[in-house]
């Protein structure tokens, strides 16, 4: 079966820095990939090349067999590959509902009634339907989940999550992780960049470990966490060993 997403020897430079160095990765439909690695390893950049926010200088990216390059209509690709950001970036001048409906109505030109129905379903599932007429700054929590709903309402095939819990208060993190876990269970293709190792272990089909612009290791979660093959991976995990130990003890 052709992979849904395929990166072949992708390279990217920021000025003199080679941020992605001949990255090759294959993602099947329905897979949940979690990308781990120390800061600066290029994992966010990797994500951002997939929806065209970062252009690449070398290699090729294929989505559903089609090459993504300078001639690509990124507007159409982005309707099928959704993204959620660390700082959620809800549009402050629009209400929650308007934020969610903007894409479906303006970009996909869907019927308002139908889009509204989907928005209601999704917002109700995260318990924020009653707040739909509020502006983002009036909310005391839940913005990131709304950002996820906003992306989901476009009915994408793939969802990219770029450190979506890193900027949240600890109490909010769980709620967001649960939403993502539900998505994973529904069969959607996810690429997740995160620091939440326990979560990664629980939800991923495959762990991709990066360092210095390279993919050093790819493995199933239990294999990666229990028996990392590369030195760097071991060092990386060692930094979290304390947390790992606690979590393992708790689940025993």
């Amino acid at each position: 079966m052709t992979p849904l997403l395929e990166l072949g020897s992708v390279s990217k430079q920021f000025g003199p820095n080679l941020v992605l160095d001949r990255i090759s990765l294959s993602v099947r439909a329905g897979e949940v990939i979690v990308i781990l690695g120390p800061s600066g390893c290029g994992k966010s950049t990797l994500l951002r090349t997939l929806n065209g926010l970062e252009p690449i200088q070398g290699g090729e990216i294929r989505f559903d067999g089609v090459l993504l390059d300078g001639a690509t209509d990124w507007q159409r690709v982005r309707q099928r590959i959704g993204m959620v950001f660390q700082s959620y970036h809800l549009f402050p001048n629009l209400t929650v509902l308007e934020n969610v409906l903007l894409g479906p109505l303006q970009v996909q030109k869907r019927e308002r009634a139908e889009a509204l129905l989907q928005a209601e379903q999704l917002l109700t599932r995260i318990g924020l339907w009653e707040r739909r007429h509020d502006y983002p700054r009036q909310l005391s929590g839940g913005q990131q989940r709304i950002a996820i709903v906003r992306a989901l309402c476009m009915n994408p095939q793939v969802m990219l999550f770029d450190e979506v819990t890193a900027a949240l208060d600890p109490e909010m993190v769980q709620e967001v992780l649960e939403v993502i876990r539900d998505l994973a269970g529904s069969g959607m293709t996810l690429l997740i960049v995160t620091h939440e190792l326990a979560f990664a272990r629980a939800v991923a089909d495959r762990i991709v470990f990066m360092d210095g612009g390279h993919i050093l290791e790819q493995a199933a979660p239990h294999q990666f966490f229990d028996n990392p093959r590369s030195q760097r991976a071991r060092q990386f995990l060692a930094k979290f060993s304390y947390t790992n130990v606690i979590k393992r003890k708790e689940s025993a």
Partner: protein
Amino acid sequence: MASSISEQLTQALPLLAVGAGQTLAISLLAILFATLGGVAYGVLAQQGGRLVRGLLRLYLELFRVVPVLVWLYLIFFGLPIFFGLDMPAFWCAVLVLALWGASEVGEVVRGGLNSLARGQQEAGLALGLSTWQLYRHVLLPQALQRLTPPTINIYTRIIKTSSLAVLIGVVEVIKVGQQIIERTYGSLLIYGLLFLFFFLVCYPLSLASRRLEQQWGNAV
């Protein structure tokens, strides 16, 4: 020669009203076009390639460096002489004031767009919005909220600068005032009325700007 204040007023007001009409017509049209032009300038300055940005820069500098008065002269008197084109003084004034105003509004819009978190743009693009949709639904509404005080400032300056049109033959409100004063020597009364006129025109603008700021402030 008029004597009593009420007599002077009755004579002066109708004349001043005509002048005021000219001032307002020129100013409001110039403000309208300056706003439209300024938004276009701001968006182009953010999105455009190097050539576009270079041209905009040139346009900006020309209007910063050359006084409005000189522009009025050059366009009004120069067009017929150099190109055989004739433009009525009224429209010439509107054009020059609009071009000058647009360069200033444009810089404000550009600054406002610039100050928006880049993430807003990325989040919008990630949803599949086109550049036009992005500006229309996300970036410009937010930028506009920050723009009101400096733009209102530019508007009041357009209104005040409109009096330069006198030099290309437009009889606007200040000129009418001078015409009356030279005949009646009632300068205190006339300048008092002119003061009132400009205050009544500019103050509501300032109030509106504050109201808009508050209203949009609720959304951000």
